[in-house]
C-alpha cells in the first residue's frame, strides 16, 4: 500500500476538516483535500455543516449580568476609585 494514495477518502477527510479550516494542512494534503471535495457531495456537505455550526456557535446568546451582581460591581468600582 502506498503512503499517499492519489485520492483522499471521505473517512480521511472528515478527520482533517479542522486542520483544513485552521489553514494548517500542508500544501500537498490540502490539494488532495480540495480535489476530493470537488468530486464528493457528501464531503462538501460535511464541510458546509462544520462552517455553519461554527458560525452558529459564534452567535450563541450570552447571559446578561444579573442586576444584583452589576450593582455590587459598580459599588466596588466606586470603592476602588475612592481609595486613590
Amino acid at each position: 500500500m502506498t503512503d499517499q494514495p492519489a485520492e483522499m477518502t471521505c473517512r480521511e477527510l472528515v478527520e482533517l476538516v479542522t486542520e483544513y479550516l485552521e489553514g494548517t494542512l500542508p500544501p500537498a494534503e490540502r490539494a488532495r483535500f480540495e480535489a476530493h471535495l470537488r468530486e464528493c457531495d457528501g464531503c462538501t456537505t460535511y464541510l458546509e455543516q462544520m462552517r455553519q455550526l461554527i458560525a452558529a456557535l459564534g452567535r450563541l446568546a450570552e447571559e446578561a449580568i444579573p442586576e444584583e451582581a452589576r450593582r455590587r460591581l459598580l459599588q466596588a468600582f466606586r470603592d476602588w476609585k475612592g481609595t486613590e
Partner: protein
Amino acid sequence: MTGPARLYQSDEELVAALRRREESAFAELIDRYHGPMLRLAMTQLHDRAHAEEIVQEAWLGVLQGIDRFEARSSLRTWMFHILLNIARTRRHRERRTVPFSALEGAGDDAPGPSVDPARFLSGDHPRWPHHWATPPQRWGPSPEERLLSRETQAVMERTIAALPDTQRAVITLRDLQGVTSAEAARLLGITEGHLRVLLHRARSKVRRALEAYFGDRQP
C-alpha cells in the same frame, strides 16, 4: 449583544476611560463581557456559584491591573487571562490540581472517530473504499437560519455543557468567543497542535448532535 448602544468603540477608548476612572466605561465593560467571562469560568469550575465568584474576583483584578495593561493582547484576552489565573488558583486550593505537565490530556476523553464508522463503506469495497455509505444531508434550504432557532441553540448548549472540560474551554474560546488559536493555546497553556485536536473533537460532537436533532425533523 443587544442592548444600549456602546459608548466606547474600541479597546483603546475603553482603557483610556477606565484610566480616567469613568464609571460608564466599567459599566459597559461588565455589560459586554459578563456573559463571556461567566461562560469561560464555567469551563474551569463546574459549580456555578464558584464560577460567579471567580468572575467577580476577575473584575476586581481587571480594575487593579488596568493602569498596567500594555495592550500586548486585546483587552478581552487580558481579562480572560486574569480569570483563568484565578480559576487555576481556586482549583489548586480545592485540591483539584492537575500539574501543568499533565495538562495535555486532562479534561479530555478517549479519542474516537468523528463520524460513526458505519456511515462509511468498508476498506475492501470494490469501487469506493472508505467513502460515504450514508452521506450527510443538508440541514434544510436555510441551515444558517435554522441554526439560529432557540431549539437548535439549546442543542448546541447542551452538547457543549457535556463536553470534557478542556474541549469545552477550547470551543468556547475559539468558536463562541472568536479568540485566535494562538491566543487560546496561550491562555490555556497548551500547544496549538493539541488545541486543534481538542477543537476537532468538540466540533465533531456538536455536528453529530445537530445531525441527530435534525434527522428526525422536517427541514
